[in-house]
């Protein structure tokens, strides 16, 4: 196939029909948008993607154009409204699919088939189409219709079993780790499917992304421990407080610092805190001595007075100097002032009619090309902002669009 040789972004001649909602699917299409794809987000009329009604809201006032979650997930996309329950709405999806390379959807398994927009229907219209479905448990299997949210999907698939403290209940991770990992998988599945179509002369494909599986597949604690269990029958426990001499979360003058201990790092830690004389004592001078877990509390008495006298950034700089592994426990406020992220100009300011210009997390990568200015992220779309634009691109007249609007199709 012929490709535009002067393009700027790797996917900037790719069109994605985005039938996802909530968090996992939209995270995936957001990344495709960041790589330059034209993502047409189809939302239900009136209320739109349910994340528009999910917190956090700007100034804590709910409203369809006020959700920070929605805004974060939907930069670099166009929004059109469409009633998929109507025959005409489904015809419009099929029209759009003719000119698209990728469809991503996240309805409950079976929904797309039931409304005549399943892979078998769409591939008749566009045999080269890559269609990616994101669902909690996948398109089949005994749990197909089970309810899935971050909490229970992390419990089942993720590494909750090794998260938290051994004397307490397993602990949920923060944020939307499980959903977003599946979003990445959806973006990657779509990209590899497209590669196969374009450069391996293959027909399209249908990708089934299960959040449960992507969590179980994640290298986060889980993968190594799963293999370790087969090797020895060992069931992993939760580490919680210090598990090795010198390690743990140590208090600083302005917060906390996570440090990795263990026999390999203790000599460096000892040098960092200026107690080299310890290394001449037999219990600290040998690896065996340093590995003895009875020394955990003894060593805390050496290190905590030292960390308490320093800020977490000072401790970090010392760790870098003495080859100790660790990291400051930052807050979001720390991040926006952090010398590294500021020096790299990581954060992006994006203007929006509701919020005015505010900071967003930046691109997840940097493409380096001499003499090429990469486009700035476009702000998240208002509900249906691009409905007319997209419909006219597939040849609908202003009158036809007006008729659709009158009938509540858009």
């Amino acid at each position, binding site marked *: 196939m012929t490709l535009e040789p002067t393009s700027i972004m*790797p996917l900037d001649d790719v069109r994605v029909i985005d039938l996802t909602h909530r968090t996992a699917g939209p995270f995936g299409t957001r990344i495709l948008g960041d790589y330059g794809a034209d993502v047409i987000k189809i939302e239900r009329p009136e209320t739109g993607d349910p994340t528009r009604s999910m917190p956090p809201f*700007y100034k804590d006032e709910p409203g369809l154009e006020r959700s920070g979650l929605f805004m974060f997930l939907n930069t670099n996309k166009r929004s059109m409204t469409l009633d998929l329950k109507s025959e005409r709405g489904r015809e419009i999806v099929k029209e759009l699919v003719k000119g698209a390379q990728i469809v991503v959807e996240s309805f409950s398994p079976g929904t797309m088939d039931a409304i005549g927009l399943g892979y078998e229907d769409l591939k008749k219209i566009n045999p080269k189409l890559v269609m990616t479905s994101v669902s909690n448990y996948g398109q089949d299997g005994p749990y197909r219709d089970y309810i899935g949210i971050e909490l229970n999907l992390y419990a089942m698939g993720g590494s*909750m079993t090794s998260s938290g403290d051994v004397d307490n209940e397993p602990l949920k991770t923060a944020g939307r780790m499980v959903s977003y990992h599946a979003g990445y998988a959806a973006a990657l599945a779509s990209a590899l499917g497209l590669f196969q179509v374009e450069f391996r002369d293959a027909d399209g494909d249908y990708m089934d992304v299960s959040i449960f*599986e992507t969590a179980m597949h994640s290298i986060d604690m889980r993968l190594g421990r799963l293999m370790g269990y087969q090797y020895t029958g060992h069931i992993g426990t939760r580490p919680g407080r210090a598990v090795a001499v010198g390690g743990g979360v140590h208090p600083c003058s302005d917060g906390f610092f996570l440090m*990795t201990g263990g026999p390999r790092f203790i000599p460096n830690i000892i040098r960092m805190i200026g107690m080299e004389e310890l290394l001449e004592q037999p219990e600290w001078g040998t690896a065996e001595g340093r590995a003895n877990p009875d020394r955990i509390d003894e060593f805390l008495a050496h290190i905590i007075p030292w960390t308490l006298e320093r800020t977490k950034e000072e401790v970090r700089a010392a760790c870098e100097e003495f080859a100790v592994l660790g990291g400051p426990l930052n807050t979001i406020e720390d991040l926006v002032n952090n010398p590294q992220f500021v020096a790299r100009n990581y954060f992006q300011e994006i203007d929006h009619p509701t919020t005015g210009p505010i900071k967003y997390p930046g691109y997840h*990568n940097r493409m380096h090309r001499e003499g090429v200015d990469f486009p700035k992220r476009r702000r998240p779309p208002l509900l249906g902002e691009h409905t007319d634009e997209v419909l006219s691109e597939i040849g609908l007249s202003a009158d036809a669009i007006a008729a659709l609007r009158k009938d509540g199709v858009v």
Partner: protein
Amino acid sequence: MVSTGSRRLPLEGVRILDITVVWAGPYGTQVLADWGAEIIRIESIKHFPPTTRGMMPYPDRNMPSLGGGSAQFPDHEPGKRPWNRWASFNAHARNKRSMTVDLRRPEGQEVFDRLLRISDGVMENNVPISMERVNVTWERVHEVNPRAIMIRQPAFGIDGPYKNYRTFGSHMAAVVGHYSFMGYRDEDPSMTGNTLTADAAGGAAGALAFSAGLRHREKTGEGLFIELSTAENFMTYLGDQFMDYSMNGRQPGHQGNRDPQYAPQGVYPCLGDDRWIAISVQSDEAWQALAGTVMQRPDLASDSRFATLAGRQEHHDELDVELLTWTVTQDAIEAMNLLQANNIAAGTVMAESDAYADPHMQARGFWEELTAEEVGTHLYTSTLWTAKNTPRRHRWGPPRMGEDNEYVYKELLGFSDAEYKEYEAAGHIGMDYDLDPGD
């Protein structure tokens, strides 16, 4: 979905030189290898990469904390070549190849160039100073092979004051603010433990970056350099928390296992040792089903204090005790199935044994059996997703260090037997460490 496809894997014919370490980088090349890319791990018998192939080359089985836990080795036995038996490595290395060369010497550099000329690109996630020492930079890669794609993935990127700050995923999580949200309620962060999600996120991002680079290369004929800070990438996983700060100046603290929108929600103990179930009540109807139908507690179901989300949040501590009183009498798996049958969000906190026994995973063909020399026969996670027309099928198990030296040197680079022996004698080619002092 069990794939019925039989066609070629999408990345067959794509060759990537893999200089990744520990987890984030290797996870990215794992996903690409699973979908057909020829991933050639470049290793060195002169340098042991700590954590990647074990904590130390020859750990003592009786000192588990020195070896990172003997649970990492089959039958707790490190064996003659412990680096080939390390669970954390073997879990990601299926479908990859391994060759050895010492990049610190000129003839090693020459081998790298020759390989690079017949490859599609390079992926690495080392601290920049390490790559600069062996001159593996974009400038060099691009000069040797203008069509090559390069993904550089140091924790904090290739510039800035943190450029050479070494961290694991758990520390990156700290730096980007993860533990300011994750943690037990009303507790300081010392009991949180740590999470390595930054590595998983980074791996997925690296794989996608390489795929995007491939398309760019096919379109323009030119390679592409994508730099990916694993920490910056992971910060996006806290997007809505970041937005709350950006929009409202808010930085909420530890939420434990609770959620402002759902109550009761928590992780509760079940019958047996260290058995748990996660439960989230997401509506008033779900509460009625839980209290009335599942727990058989009409007194709770009809108690007006618990009828609304606000009421259940206010009395959350009390409800936790009521739920726990029921869950401790239940089997963790049966309780999940019962709760889900009543439309209540619930999931067993699956231990490793649960994962392999899980009927859903089995029905979907998620575990694949592979045999690896010096390791044995084990189950491996399948691909990250299922493709209808493309087989979900691994090709081989994790490679031993240097296992593919003959293939790489003789078949790919055309070395004669004599040259091969010469490189063997010079300490480039081998399957056992011959460490320089200090390595």
